[in-house]
C-alpha cells in the first residue's frame, strides 16, 4: 500500500523501511517500540557529540582570529567557557529534546542532519556537509535555506570578527609606510593580515556532492514508491503538504489558526505571504552577518523553527542547543531571564490550554493560540536580541582595536 494513502504520514519514504521493522520487533518482556526509541536516543547523542565538535572548531578559530588581531586580552577578561561542552550539555538536558526523544518523533533525525551539515561545513568536509543538507531538505523542506550559511562556512571558514577589523589592524600597523611601494606591500600585508578570501574549491565540491546525494536519494525514493505513483506522488504528499498546509490541526505554530478562516480565493496568496516571511529575512541577514556563517546558520534555524508550517518543540530544541555555541559572544544578552521564564511558562501553559480546549471543552481555540502567539513573540525577542548582541560584540571588538 502506498505510505501516503490516508493522511497519516507525510514524511520521507526512506524513513519507513528503516523505522518500520524496529517498531514491530519485540524483545521478550520489553515494549514493542524499544528499538525505535533506542535509535532516537543514539541519534540525539550523536547530535550532541557533533555539536561539541563544532563548538571546539569555533573556539579554536575564535582564538586564532583574536590572536591575529592582538585582542587575546578579550579572552582573559571575559569568563571564557568551553562552548562545545556547554552547547552539547544544553542540547542533551533541554526538556524539549528529552520530550521529543521520549515521544518517538522523527525530529531527532532532522536535527542530526542539520547539525551534520553545519559540522561538515565548519570542518571543511564538503561531502558530509552536502549529505546533511540534502537529507535534511529531503526530510522537511525548510533546511534548504541553510545552503547559504553552509556555502559561506565552506568558503570562508568558521566564525570570525568582521574582515573590516583585519583591514583596520593592517592599516594601523602599516601607518608609517611609504606610498610608493604600495602595490607589493599591499599584497604582502594582505597575506600577513590573514584577511579571509572566499575559496571556491570546497564550494564546488559541495555542489558536486549535493548533486550526487540528491540523485541517489531521488533514485531510492523512486524505487520505494514506484508502484504508488512515483516521485510526483512523493513530492506532492511531502513537500506539497508542507507548502500547502492542508492539515489544520492545532500545533505550536501560527499557521493553523489563520488558515482555518482564510477564504479559498485568498488562500494561495496568504500561503505565499507566510512562506516569503521566512525568505525575505535571508538576504539582509547574509549581508550583515556574512563574517559569522555559523551564527547565521543558527539564526536561520531559529527563524525556520518559528515560521515553518508545522513546527514542533523538536525544532526549538535544536536552536536552543546551538545557542550555547555562542555563549561567549552572547554573554551580554539582555532579557535572558525574561526569555527563560517565558519559555518555562509557555511550556507549562500550552498543554494546559490545549487540554482545556479540546478535552474539557471549557476553553476555545483562542486560549491555545494565545500561547502560540506568546511563544512566537518569545522566539522573535530571542532572535532579535541574539543578533543585536552579536553586533554589539563586534562593535566592542572594533572599539578595542581602535583604542
Amino acid at each position: 500500500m502506498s505510505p501516503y494513502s490516508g493522511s497519516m504520514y507525510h514524511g520521507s519514504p526512506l524513513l519507513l523501511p528503516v523505522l518500520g521493522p524496529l517498531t514491530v520487533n519485540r524483545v521478550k518482556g520489553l515494549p514493542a517500540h524499544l528499538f525505535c526509541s533506542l535509535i532516537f536516543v543514539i541519534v540525539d547523542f550523536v547530535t550532541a557529540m557533533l555539536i561539541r565538535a563544532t563548538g571546539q572548531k569555533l573556539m579554536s578559530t575564535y582564538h586564532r582570529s583574536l590572536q591575529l588581531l592582538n585582542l587575546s586580552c578579550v579572552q582573559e577578561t571575559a569568563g571564557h567557557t568551553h562552548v562545545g561542552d556547554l552547547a552539547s550539555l544544553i542540547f542533551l538536558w533541554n526538556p524539549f529534546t528529552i520530550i521529543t526523544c521520549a515521544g518517538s518523533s522523527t525530529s531527532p533525525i532532522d536535527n542530526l542532519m542539520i547539525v551534520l551539515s553545519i559540522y561538515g561545513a565548519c570542518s571543511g568536509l564538503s561531502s558530509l556537509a552536502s549529505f546533511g543538507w540534502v537529507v535534511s531538505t529531503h526530510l522537511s523542506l525548510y533546511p534548504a535555506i541553510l545552503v547559504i550559511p553552509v556555502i559561506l562556512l565552506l568558503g570562508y571558514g568558521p566564525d570570525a570578527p568582521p574582515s573590516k577589523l583585519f583591514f583596520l589592524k593592517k592599516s594601523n600597523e602599516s601607518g608609517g609606510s611609504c606610498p610608493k611601494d604600495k602595490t607589493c606591500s599591499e599584497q604582502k600585508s594582505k597575506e600577513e593580515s590573514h584577511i579571509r578570501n572566499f575559496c571556491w574549491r570546497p564550494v564546488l565540491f559541495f555542489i558536486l556532492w549535493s548533486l550526487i546525494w540528491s540523485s541517489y536519494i531521488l533514485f531510492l525514493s523512486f524505487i520505494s514508491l514506484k508502484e504508488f505513483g512515483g516521485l510526483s506522488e512523493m513530492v506532492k504528499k511531502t513537500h506539497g503538504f508542507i507548502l500547502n498546509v492542508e492539515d489544520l490541526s492545532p500545533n505550536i505554530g501560527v499557521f493553523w489558526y489563520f488558515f482555518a478562516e482564510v477564504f479559498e480565493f485568498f488562500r494561495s496568496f496568504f500561503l505565499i505571504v507566510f512562506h516569503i516571511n521566512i525568505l525575505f529575512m535571508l538576504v539582509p541577514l547574509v549581508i550583515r552577518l556574512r563574517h559569522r556563517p555559523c551564527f547565521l546558520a543558527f539564526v536561520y534555524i531559529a527563524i525556520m523553527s518559528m515560521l515553518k508550517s508545522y513546527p514542533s518543540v523538536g525544532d526549538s530544541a535544536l536552536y536552543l542547543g546551538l545557542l550555547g555555541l555562542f555563549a561567549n559572544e552572547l554573554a551580554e544578552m539582555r532579557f535572558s531571564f525574561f526569555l527563560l521564564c517565558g519559555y518555562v511558562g509557555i511550556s507549562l501553559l500550552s498543554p494546559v490550554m490545549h487540554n482545556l480546549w479540546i478535552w474539557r471543552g471549557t476553553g476555545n481555540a483562542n486560549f491555545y493560540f494565545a500561547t502560540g502567539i506568546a511563544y512566537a513573540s518569545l522566539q522573535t525577542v530571542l532572535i532579535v536580541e541574539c543578533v543585536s548582541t552579536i553586533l554589539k560584540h563586534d562593535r566592542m571588538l572594533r572599539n578595542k582595536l581602535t583604542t
Partner: protein
Amino acid sequence: MVRPWILLLLLLLAISPPSHSSTVHNNNWAVLVCTSRFWFNYRHMANTLSLYRTVKRLGIPDERIILMLADDMACNARNSYPAQVFNNENHMLNLYGDNVEVDYRGYEVTVENFLRVLTGRHETAVPRSKRLLSDEGSHILVYMTGHGGDEFLKFQDNEELQSHDLADAVKQMKEKHRFKELLIMVDTCQAATLFSQLQSPGVLAIGSSKKGENSYSHHLDSDIGVSVVDRFTYYTLAFFEKLNMYSNASLSSLFNSYDSHLLMSTASYREDLYRRPLSEVPVTNFFGSVMKTFHTDFAYTGFSMEPEAHISLVSETDSRRTLGSENAQTEAANHNAKDNCPFHAWLKVLEDKLDNENAEKLVLYGLGSMVLLLAISTLLSV
C-alpha cells in the same frame, strides 16, 4: 413470427439454473418493527426494545438498525417508572436506556413506511438514518411484533400488512439486490401465516405460532400493571443472553430451543427458500455483526468474490468488473506513450524486475551503501 422466439427465450430463462450468489457477505442490518401503540400493548414495545438491545450488544451499530416504534410507553402518563421500559418483573434491565435511537416513531410507523424502508423507495427528503441502505452483501433481520391474524399483521390499530404485501416487498428487494440473506422473525398470533406467500430465494422465516394458534404473553408485572413480554421473544432472549459477539451457536440450535409447551404455541419456521443448512449458519450472521476480513494489497474493486473462491462469474457481475478493466486500459496506454523514450524504457525494465519485497530490500541496501559512501568520502577528504 416473433412469438416463438419470445417463448424460447422465456423457456431458456425458466430452465436456466438459478445464478449462484457470488457475492460476499459483508454487512448486517436489522429492521425491528413494533406495530402496536397504546399502554396495554406495552409488551410489544418491550419485545422490540429487548431485541434492539440484543442486536446492538452483539455488534450491529445504530447506523444499521432501523427501529420503528410507537414509542408511547416510556413517557406515558400511566407509567409509574417514567422513562424506563422493562421486559421482566424483576426490573433488572432498563431497556429505554441512554442510547436508544428510534428511526420511525409514533404515527410514522405505517405500512407504507415499512414497505418503503424494505424496498428503498423513499422520497428525496428522507434522511439517510431512515433508509435501509443495504446492498447485495447484506444479511437483514426483520423482526415484527404486534397483533396479527391469518395472513395479516395489524399496524397501529388502523391498517394492516398482508402476507402478499410482505412477499411482494421481499421480491422487490431481491430484484434490486438489496439483500444476500433475509431472516424474518414474527411474534404475533398466527404468525406463520404472514410469510406463507414468500417465494424469493435466500429468505428464512420463523413465526411464534401456526395458523389457528395464538401467541401468548409471558408474565404480568403487577407493578406496572400490564404484561411486559411475550413468550416467544422471552425465550429468544433467554437464548441470546448466553451468547456474546464471538459465539458460533447456529440457527438450528436457536430454532430447536423453542419448546412448544413453554411457548404455549408452536414456533414454526420456513426454510425451503433458504439454501444453506441451518446447522452451519451462526446466529451472529443475522443477530450480530462479526465478519471475516480479507487483507488485500490491491485496490477495492467493489463486490468481487473472495480471493480463494473460483466460481465462474455470471453476467450480472460483469458490469462491476469494468472498473478493473478500465484501469488495465489506461495502464496500457501509459506504457505505450512511455516506451518511446529510452530512459523511460530502461526505467520500465527496472520496474518490471523489481517487485515489492525486492524494492524494500534494495532501498535498505541503498541506504546502507549511502552511509558507507559518506564515511569513505569523509575519511578521504580529511
